[in-house]
Every structure is written in C-alpha cells, then in structure tokens.
C-alpha cells in the first residue's frame, strides 16, 4: 500500500492538558513570596486599623465639634482640628508656591539647557538635596534664614515686614498683635511680631520639597519624544517655542504629579516646622504673624503629656492629616499615570 492511499482516520482533536505542577522548590518560592506580600498587607492593615480604631474613640466623643473647634484640650473635652488643619494646609500651600517655580525651572534647566557633561552631576545634586535630613533644613531655617535673611535685626527688616507693610490690607498678609492690627509704618514695632510664622515654616519646607517635585518633573520632561522636538525645530521654533509646544504639554502629568507629591510631603513635614513655628491654637489665615499650628507639630508637641484619651485625640488629628496626604498622593499618582509621559515612568 502506498502511503498516500491509506485512508485518513479522523482522530478527535483533544487539547493536551497543559497544567504544570510546580516543583517543590518552586512551590516553596511562591509560598514564601506570597507570604511576604500578605505579611506586608497585614502589617499595613493593622497600622491603619489601629489608627482608625483609636481615632474613632476620640472622634465619636467629640462629635462634629472635632471639625470646628480650634482649641486642643482633649482632657477637658474641647478639642478639634480646625486650627491645626488650617495651619497645615497654609504651610503646605506656602511651600508649594515657592517650591514649584524653583522645581520647574531647575527641571527645565537640567532636562533642556544644561550641557550634557553637567547633567549627571546636577541630577545627583538634586537627589542629594532630597536626601538631606529635615532636621538639617530646620537648623538652616532657624539659625540662618529667619534671623539673617527674613527677619533681620530688632525691627525685623525683611520680606515678611515688607509684605505686611505694603500688602497688609490683604487678610493673608495682615499682622496683628494682641488682637488688633498693628501699624507697621510705626518703626517701634518689634521684629518678634514676624518670627516663628507659618510663612517662614513654609519657606523652609519649600526647600525640602522642591527637589522631590523637581526630579519627577525632570523625569517626565526628559522623556519628551525626540521626533516631536525635531519637528518643532524644523518648523522654525526657537528653543523656548519647542519647550512650550512639545516638552511642557508632554510633561504636564509629571508637573501636576510632582507638585502634588511635593504638597503631600509638605503637609506631613514635622521636625522643621516644629523647630521654627511657635504653636498657637487659633484659626487664622494671617501667614506672616508670629505663631501658627500644624497637625504634625501638634503631635510632636503634645504626645508626651497626653493621657490615654489624649493620645487617641492626637491619633484622630493624625488620621485627618493622613487622609489629606493620601488624597493628595492619589491625585499625584493618577495624574502621572494618566499622562503620556507617565506610561513609562515610575513615581
């Protein structure tokens, strides 16, 4: 019989079983890594749950007053986050107002203008700046920036006094002493009216968060596609024209993300704020005036003398801060992930 003339037998097509049993070392490996992942999950949930549980003790006893009370006397039953949360947000916003132009300019310089030999060094310097401990920034702010740049001499010459004198009619820049607005053209007003203000704390925090924002912005700028850059140049754009029409739109996600991440850091910053700020519990937007408050500084100030319930109250304040930073961070990562540049970048 010739091979070609044999009748074809239709065999039912049965897919092979492809299941592969993991070897013993493989299943151990999978179990160990999964165990580590679940352990991390458990730890994080325990932290969150514990915070929430203790915080709820305090929040339920304070009721809605927790959001509207400015004082902080948990053992007297009167406590709330109105003052501290306002202060935190104001310090964070001040920091961002100073940090974003710095970060944006530096990121653009490194990504677009710097000679390629310098680039590596500059990136390292900015990263190093992000790694400098916050207590060092605090020292710098308290011993150099405040007494020698911002509030100089007995009269407190400097930016805050200048702002308060000429822009004092804006509530943000008003300065009061003993409940009444001070007349700053009167040269006898002492400089202590301007020290330890939220403005100065915000400026110090700005320097801490600028490198964080800068490295994210630079990352997204440097990924702007070469073809589009060259296209812009070919159409006759100047360098700035190219940046405005290619690099900035491409890096928009990175810019928003970096800003929000910086804001998140600024809101949570403790020690530098605590070193400079003198804590005062009243709801106010007067940035330049001496005294202010922030949630993290409140915790650092009061944890030692707090009773069991007082600790719960501090946790409630901490939880409100955490919720705030969490929202800000999620906005940041969503902005980065949605953007064109974010598809490949991390952070």
């Amino acid at each position, binding site marked *: 019989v010739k091979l070609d003339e044999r009748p074809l037998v239709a065999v039912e097509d049965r897919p092979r079983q492809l299941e592969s049993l993991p070897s013993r070392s493989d299943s151990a490996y999978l179990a160990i890594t999964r165990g580590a992942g*679940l352990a991390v999950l458990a730890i994080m949930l325990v932290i969150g749950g514990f915070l929430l549980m203790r915080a709820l003790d305090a929040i339920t006893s304070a009721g809605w007053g927790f959001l509207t009370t400015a004082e902080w006397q948990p053992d007297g039953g009167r406590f709330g986050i109105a003052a501290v949360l306002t202060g935190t947000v104001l310090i964070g916003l001040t920091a961002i107002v100073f940090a974003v132009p710095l970060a944006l300019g530096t990121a653009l310089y490194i990504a677009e203008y710097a000679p390629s030999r310098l680039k590596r060094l500059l990136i390292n310097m900015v990263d190093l700046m992000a790694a400098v401990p916050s207590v060092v920034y605090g020292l710098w702010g308290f011993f150099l920036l405040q007494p020698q740049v911002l509030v100089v001499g007995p009269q407190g010459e400097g930016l805050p006094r200048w702002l308060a004198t000429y822009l004092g009619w804006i509530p943000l820049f008003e300065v009061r002493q003993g409940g009444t607005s001070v007349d700053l053209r009167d040269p006898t007003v002492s400089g202590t009216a301007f020290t330890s203000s939220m403005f100065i704390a915000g400026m110090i925090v700005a320097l801490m968060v600028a490198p964080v924002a800068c490295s994210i912005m630079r990352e997204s700028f440097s990924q702007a596609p070469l073809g589009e850059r060259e296209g812009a140049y070919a159409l006759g754009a100047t360098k700035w024209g190219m940046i405005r029409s290619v690099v900035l739109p491409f890096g928009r996600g990175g810019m928003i993300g970096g800003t929000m991440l910086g804001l998140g850091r600024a*809101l949570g910053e403790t020690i530098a704020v605590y070193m400079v700020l003198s804590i005062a519990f009243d709801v106010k937007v007067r940035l330049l005036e001496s005294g202010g408050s922030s949630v993290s500084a409140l915790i650092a100030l009061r944890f030692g003398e707090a009773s069991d319930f007082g600790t719960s109250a501090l946790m409630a304040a901490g939880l409100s801060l955490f919720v705030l930073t969490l929202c800000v961070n999620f906005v940041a990562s969503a902005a980065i992930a949605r953007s064109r540049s974010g598809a490949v970048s991390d952070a």
Partner: protein
Amino acid sequence: MTVELPEQRRALRSVQPEDRFALLGSLAAAASLAFLICRVLLPVDAVLGFAVVFFFAFICCYAVSVSFTQSGPHVRDRLASIVAHSLAATMLLALVVVVAFTFKRGASALRHWNFLTQDLSEAGPLQPLTEGGVLHAVLGTLIMITIALVLTVPLGILAAVYLSESRSKVSRFVRTIVEAMTALPSVIAGLFVYALIITGQRSLGFGQKSGLAASVALSVMMLPIVIRAADVVLRLVPGTLKEAAAALGASRWRIAWHVVMPTSRSGLMTAVILGTARGIGETSPVLLTAGYATGYNWDPFAGPMVSLPLATFSLTRSPEPTQIARGFGAAAVLMLLVLLLFVLARVIGGRGPGELTAHQRRRAGLRSARDLGRFDGYESAASHAWSAHPLPPPPPLNGRSL
C-alpha cells in the same frame, strides 16, 4: 555672467558675540539700577530685596537690549532661558548653603577629637567643647538603622518580588495599600508605635521608650519606601530575559534567583541605600519613641537611646551656645553619614539592569571561557566515541521520500 561673491562663512554658533555683550551690559546696568533703587531711592536694605530688584532689573534690561536686534520669539526664548538658568542656580545655591552652613557651624565642635570619641554623660551645657561628644548618638543611630534594615529589607524585597511576579487581584490590592502607606507622615508612624508599644493599657508594651521601639517606627516608615523602589526596579528587568530562561527550562525560583536578582542587583541596592538614608535622617518617629539619653546605651530593648538627628534637635533647642555648637556638630556628622550612603548608592547603583562593571564583565568572560573549554571536552570525547563505535548507516527509505 556670474558675479564672484567673496565666500563668507555663516556663523553657526548659537551664541553670537553680541549676545555676550548684551548679557554683560544688562548685568552691569541691572547692578547699577538695583544699587540706585535699593540704596539711594528706597530704604530696602536687605540682601533679599537687593537680589529681587537686581533680578527684575536684569530681565528688563536684557529684554530691551536683545529686542534691538532680534524678533519677538527670540526675545522670549532668551528670557525663558535666563529664568530657567537663574531658578536652577537659586536651587543649587540653596543646597550648597544648607550643606556649607551645617559644616561651618559644626566645625567648632568637630574640631575637637573628643567630639567623636566621647558621650555627653559627663559634659553638661556649661562644659567647654573640649569635653563630651556624640559617639553615643552615632552608636544609637547605627543600632536603630541596623535593626530597621533587618526588619525591612528581607520582607520588603520578598514582597516586591511578589508584587512584580504575581498578577492576581490580591497583589494589585497589596500594591495599592503599599502606595497608600508611602503617604503616611513619619510622625504618625512614630505615634502609632508610641501608642502600641510604649503606652496605653490595651497595648502590648514594654512600657518604656527604647531603641527597638524607634527601630520599629523607622521600619514602618521605611517599609513602603523600600517596597515601592524595589518594585520599580524589578519591573525594569526585561521580560525577554525571563522568557529566555523559562524556555531553557528554568523553574520560577531559578528564574528569580539566577536572572531577576543578578540583573536588578544594583537597582535593589540603590533602593535599600536610599531608604536607609531616609531612615537615618528621620527625627520625628525617633523623637516619639526613643527618648533622650546622654550616655551610651548598647541595649536596644531597654532604656532611652538617642540618634543623631534627635541629638541635633534636642541640643539646638538649648539656649547655651556650646550645646548649639554640639547640635550643629551632630548635624554635620549626620550629613557626612548621609553623604557617604549617597555616594555608595551612586557607586553601586546608577547602572541599568544587566549593565556590568569591568570586574563583573571580566568574571563573566572567564566563566564563559571555562564553559567553552568544557564543551570542547565533550565534543572531543563524543568524536572519540564515534570513531570507536560508528553508528550503523541509516536504514534505506524503501522508495519513500521524506
């Protein structure tokens, strides 16, 4: 008929000589203008005011002088470039000032050797700087960070491997939670440990501040950072490498150990080192959990233990100049530690996955030369066997074609 024009080279440089003149001229004009405004017309006597006036005067002068020769877009281009340059210079200047200021003020304490060889138990605020030092704080920092690393690094890297390997719903949830936890302010990590371990009737506790409590607080803060950074590094390992290993029959464990880990080693080291630098510099969790000590404490389980940032913070709150000098000294030592870690991270890391150092490349070359020698051995053995017992010729095909 063609006219012979003398050949003129076009200037292709982006910076023309007249740009330099415009720049220098504007600088001079702005300096004089700022001097005039600040010193003569207005009583703005601060450095900052002078700098701001100078900057804006410079921008205006430069814009005007460029606009004599260039069109609008070019003027805007120049101005944007100037603004970017000055913002970057401001930021880098700030970094240099922060670091230099710390070292300058810390120098008076660091100049004495005893600052690095003694503790502060004998030296009060009134003793001169020739007595006492911060060795106890260095010791405390090292103990705390070691325990924190032992707690975070294995767990963090294993969890990151899990996140990068597994594609299940659970791993996505873990990733979201870890991402959320990176937003946890460090002071809250400290407060959590303070309430859970140190105080409170319902807590499991030793009832006292200790180095271990501080290490746990630092770990809580560092763990999400390490996981996040390691996860990013592990995801950079090219999928083709893993697939090649799988195609050669490697098991998942072998792939992780022989392909993923070596490829991402430098990135993982960088992640750990940068996490360490963050942990070393944190003050607030330590402030809440470690207490303050002036002497050596080798025992992390009992008694207060101080770290460098906490010593800096506590010492500089004193009104005594010697204590403040000591605080700056401690800050300078801390900065040196952070710098050391940072340089280490850049030396080890900073290479993409799979890029080898010269030493590693040489070792890989030696390894493959050895393999080649081994294969040669196989081949000569096989040809030996072939000549001794040649295989029978293939059977005839019986007219069938293959």
